[in-house]
């Protein structure tokens, strides 16, 4: 920048024009130049006055000034800083005044404010609560050190097998030796213990795990250490790692527990560590070494292990599964007919844990999102109604110079205030909702206990609130800002824009009705399915039955006959208790416990011939009588079916049909081994029983093979008792009886069978209840919407109605006119809602029992409910309209 040759420049017109422009937008750079030029010119003028030549004067002035270029640059920077600061201050001040204005407006309409805020609070609260659950269950990583590298591994049994089998001992051992794509494997199997010597005898859920378990699912212990490979071997000293919960509850959180010996089912174990409390899934009390024996390691047909692999860092899961499949295929060739076909079913560990509840949670999330949408539409509708009232106010502000942008900004600010207020209340609603869900956890959702109102959830609530504020404010704000000034101020009360707004509001109500329809159809389907489920007969009489688990520890019952004798005594003594109608022992109680599976073939079938999967249960002769499970043909088990006698089986009717078709099954033999093998284990069918829903009422009938307890010795059995009196009153007697025989035996999982059925139905019941609640909420909001629009319609038409009545229209004509509006809206909403529901409810298909997702009854019922409710909602304003006093109406206008 140089002023050396600049003459004294007169204020040119152009510069004056620029000043004028600066009024609108200051030009900082030009200001700096002007100011410096003024300085230099003044200084030069002074020197000229002292007699210098103009050139010398300018040179002198410039020299005295210093480094002109650098200073000008500094000044430009400084004035830009100043300008930015000013802009921010301006913006902030505008926002503040908008905010104050919004608060004032809302205070002036307390009814509207309260309704709108509560509506939004419910919507935002429900969404935040469900989001917090979704976050805790689906989104958060597992607590393990390398959670993203963990794969749950199962063996495939046949091309149609999508769930996979647990892993056979021998196969796991081969994987561990031959597969290199994994850093380590965690192998575990369930095990139960009785803890004695720490308060009352207590049943412990335990896992037998390999040493690699701790390396694979890595979380440092709270106390002590986990066990090493040396301790995970047969014959090694007994060690145990206990859970944080057990340590706290049974040992008072005493750190002296390390090194102490505790009695598990009568055997001393040394406690070497307390696991981190973050090992919360599955719920385990204690871990002991897996210590597979040589004979277990040679076993390839007994699938018992849950296996999780930790991928090597540089290996992808596809590569790892490919390598594993190669080994598995070789194993399948080496050991045929061992219930695995060489395929591997691998899932990320998190997926294998939360996969089953994902759909359920997403459906809930979808439902609450619909509720929120309805709530937002309601608020938008209320705002439109208010805008009608505020047209004058807005027109005046517009006339006073507020531009369209300013008016929209102000209206949006008002909505944001509303929505944020709703959001704050909504967080309260969410806190309540989360507490309710966590405390009940009726779905048995894993990891749900981690759901809290933490930062991500609060952020979510904030975003939803802002989204609602902008979303439901945008439409009314734009609409309100687009007013014909003069028309409004001239007071054309019934203008085109009024009908336009009416049409807009009607559209919003139609949307609400169709959304409510979707919600209600979803809820209706689930309710109907839950009702149907409750009435499914289980196949036996589940009333007044009690079931409890008894496990005889091998340490004190060294052989089969000792165990059999003790079970005999227990059954005998319990059966003779007063109040007990009959009692039985069974290896796994249908519905309450699962069942071991086996693929059976009939006699005469080829080794490679078709096999049929059935559950295998061992039972006493009294089993059928106690459950009132009918024996349709043949004879019951009896004392002749003892060890050494030909092995016998009772099978259910459907299974008999599958295996033998129309042939009589009785007298035929079945096996779940290779029929060609010399060592095949054959059972002769002696009777056909009724079918049972052994996996729960919502599952299909499972086929069953029952074998006589006398021929298949057991150490763990369920005791089933049918009461002659309400069976729970007999429970103390049963406890005493068992304790008198062996005081160290705990009764595990004592409950009535109806309770067990109830909890197996908890998921559908809870889902249907929750969705119904959301459906009702949506319905109420939609009804408010209809009511609002019809009432507004009536208010707008008072004049017209007055004229009609003055001209002789009677009350019923007026009623008809108004009701028709409501019915029209409802009809369109229901039509759209039906179409949308038909598309949406397909996602529910897997959750429904006994009906399809297009169940006509549900659709019709919901449509009628909506139509009825809409009619009632429009009836109230319609009656008001029919009572209009024509004189008053005409005078008012």
């Amino acid at each position, binding site marked *: 920048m140089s002023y050396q040759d600049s003459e004294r420049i007169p204020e040119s017109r152009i510069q004056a024009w620029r000043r004028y422009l600066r009024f609108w937008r200051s030009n900082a750079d030009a200001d700096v130049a002007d100011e410096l030029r*003024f300085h230099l010119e*003044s200084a030069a003028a002074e020197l000229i006055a002292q007699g210098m030549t103009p050139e010398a004067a300018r040179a002198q002035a410039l020299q005295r*000034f210093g480094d002109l270029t650098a*200073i000008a640059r*500094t000044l430009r920077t400084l004035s830009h800083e*100043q300008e930015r600061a000013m802009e921010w201050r301006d913006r902030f001040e505008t926002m503040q005044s908008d905010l104050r204005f919004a608060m004032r407006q809302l205070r002036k309409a307390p009814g509207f404010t309260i309704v709108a805020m509560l509506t939004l609070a419910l919507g935002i609260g429900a969404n935040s609560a469900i989001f917090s659950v979704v976050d805790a269950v689906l989104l958060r990583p597992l607590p393990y050190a390398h959670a993203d590298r963990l794969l749950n591994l199962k063996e495939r049994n046949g091309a149609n097998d999508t769930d996979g089998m647990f892993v056979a001992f021998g196969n796991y051992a081969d994987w561990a030796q031959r597969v290199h794509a994994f850093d380590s494997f965690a192998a575990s199997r369930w095990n139960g213990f009785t803890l004695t010597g720490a308060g009352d005898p207590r049943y412990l859920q335990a896992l037998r795990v390999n040493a690699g378990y701790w390396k694979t699912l890595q979380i440092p212990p709270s106390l002590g250490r986990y066990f090493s490979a040396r301790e995970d071997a047969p014959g090694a000293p007994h060690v145990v790692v206990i859970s944080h919960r057990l340590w706290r509850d049974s040992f008072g959180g005493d750190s002296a527990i390390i090194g102490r010996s505790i009695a598990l089912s009568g055997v001393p174990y040394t406690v070497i560590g307390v696991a981190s409390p973050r090992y919360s899934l599955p719920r385990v009390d204690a871990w002991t070494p897996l210590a597979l024996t040589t004979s277990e390691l040679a076993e390839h047909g007994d699938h018992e292990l849950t296996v999780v692999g930790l991928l090597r860092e540089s290996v992808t899961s596809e590569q790892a599964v490919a390598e594993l499949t190669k080994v598995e295929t070789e194993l399948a060739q080496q050991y045929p007919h061992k219930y695995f076909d060489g395929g591997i079913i691998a899932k990320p560990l998190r997926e294998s844990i939360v996969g089953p509840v994902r759909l359920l949670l997403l459906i809930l999330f979808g439902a609450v999102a619909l509720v929120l949408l309805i709530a937002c539409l309601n608020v938008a509708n209320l705002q439109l109604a208010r805008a009608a009232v505020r047209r004058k106010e807005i027109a005046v502000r517009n006339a006073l110079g507020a531009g369209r942008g300013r008016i929209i900004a102000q209206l949006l600010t008002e909505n944001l205030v509303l929505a944020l207020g709703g959001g704050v209340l909504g967080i309260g609603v969410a806190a309540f909702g989360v507490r309710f869900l966590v405390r009940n956890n009726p779905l048995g959702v894993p990891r749900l206990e981690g759901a809290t109102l933490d930062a991500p959830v609060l952020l979510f609530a904030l975003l939803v609130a802002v989204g609602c504020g902008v979303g439901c404010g945008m439409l009314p704000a734009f609409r309100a800002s687009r007013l014909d000034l003069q028309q409004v101020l001239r007071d054309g009360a019934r203008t085109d824009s009024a009908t336009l707004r009416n049409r807009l509001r009607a559209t919003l109500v139609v949307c609400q009705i169709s959304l409510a329809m979707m919600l209600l159809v979803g809820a209706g389907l689930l309710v109907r399915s839950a009702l149907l489920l409750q009435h499914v007969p289980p196949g036996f009489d589940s009333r007044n039955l009690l079931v409890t688990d008894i496990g005889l520890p091998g340490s004190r019952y060294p052989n089969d006959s000792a165990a059999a004798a003790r079970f005999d005594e227990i059954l005998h003594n319990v059966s003779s208790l007063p109040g007990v109608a009959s009692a039985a022992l069974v290896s796994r109680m249908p519905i309450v416990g699962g069942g071991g599976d086996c693929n059976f073939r009939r006699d005469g079938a080829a080794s490679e011939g078709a096999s049929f999967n059935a559950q295998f249960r061992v039972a006493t002769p009294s089993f059928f009588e106690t459950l009132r499970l009918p024996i349709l043909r043949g004879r019951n088990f009896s004392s002749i079916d003892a060890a050494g006698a030909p092995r016998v089986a009772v099978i259910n009717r459907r299974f008999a049909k599958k295996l033998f078709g129309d042939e009589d099954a009785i007298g035929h033999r079945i096996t779940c081994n290779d029929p060609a093998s010399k060592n095949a284990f054959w059972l002769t069918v002696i009777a056909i029983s009724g079918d049972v829903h052994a996996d729960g009422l919502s599952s299909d009938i499972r086929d069953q093979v029952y074998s006589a307890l006398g021929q298949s010795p057991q150490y763990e059995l369920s005791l089933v008792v049918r009461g002659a009196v309400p069976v729970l009153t007999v429970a103390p007697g049963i406890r005493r009886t068992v304790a008198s025989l062996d005081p160290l035996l705990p009764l595990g999982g004592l409950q009535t069978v109806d309770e067990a059925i109830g909890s197996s139905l908890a998921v559908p019941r809870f889902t249907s209840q929750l969705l119904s609640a959301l459906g009702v909420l949506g319905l109420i909001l939609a009804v408010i919407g209809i009511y609002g629009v019809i009432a507004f319609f009536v208010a707008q038409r008072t004049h017209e109605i007055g004229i009609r009545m003055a001209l002789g229209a009677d009350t019923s004509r007026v009623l008809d006119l108004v009701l028709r509006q409501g019915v029209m809206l409802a009809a369109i909403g229901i039509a759209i809602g039906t179409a949308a529901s038909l598309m949406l409810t397909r996602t529910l298909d897997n959750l429904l029992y006994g009906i399809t997702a297009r169940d006509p009854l549900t659709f019709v019922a919901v449509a009628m409910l909506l139509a009825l409710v809409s009619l009632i909602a429009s009836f109230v304003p319609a009656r008001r309209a029919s009572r209009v006093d024509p004189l008053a109406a005409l005078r008012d206008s």
Partner: protein
Amino acid sequence: MKDPSVALLQGSLDLVVLKTLTWQPMHGFGIARWIQRLTESALQVEEGSLYPALYRLENQGLIKAEWRLTENNRRAKYYRLTPGGRRRLAEETASWERFAAAIGKVLGATEQPA
């Protein structure tokens, strides 16, 4: 040009500028001349360095600028003191006087350090 003149420190320049504006609004050139005349050129202010000081003071809200016409009918940017600037001047003046008095005492001391 070294001796009788004193290089002005940044903080002191701010103080001088604020003081200059206590009587009336002035433009940058006027401020420069006033300082020169009053101190009889004892304070060697490079005229250009005055401006960054003025801009900073403005950004701090201690002075405020506006464009006006001079007696000669030329457009010039005038600075005036804001109430905040007046307060700051009072504070700075007081602390300057304490400082000057303290230094003066030390330099005028006759007592030998113990």
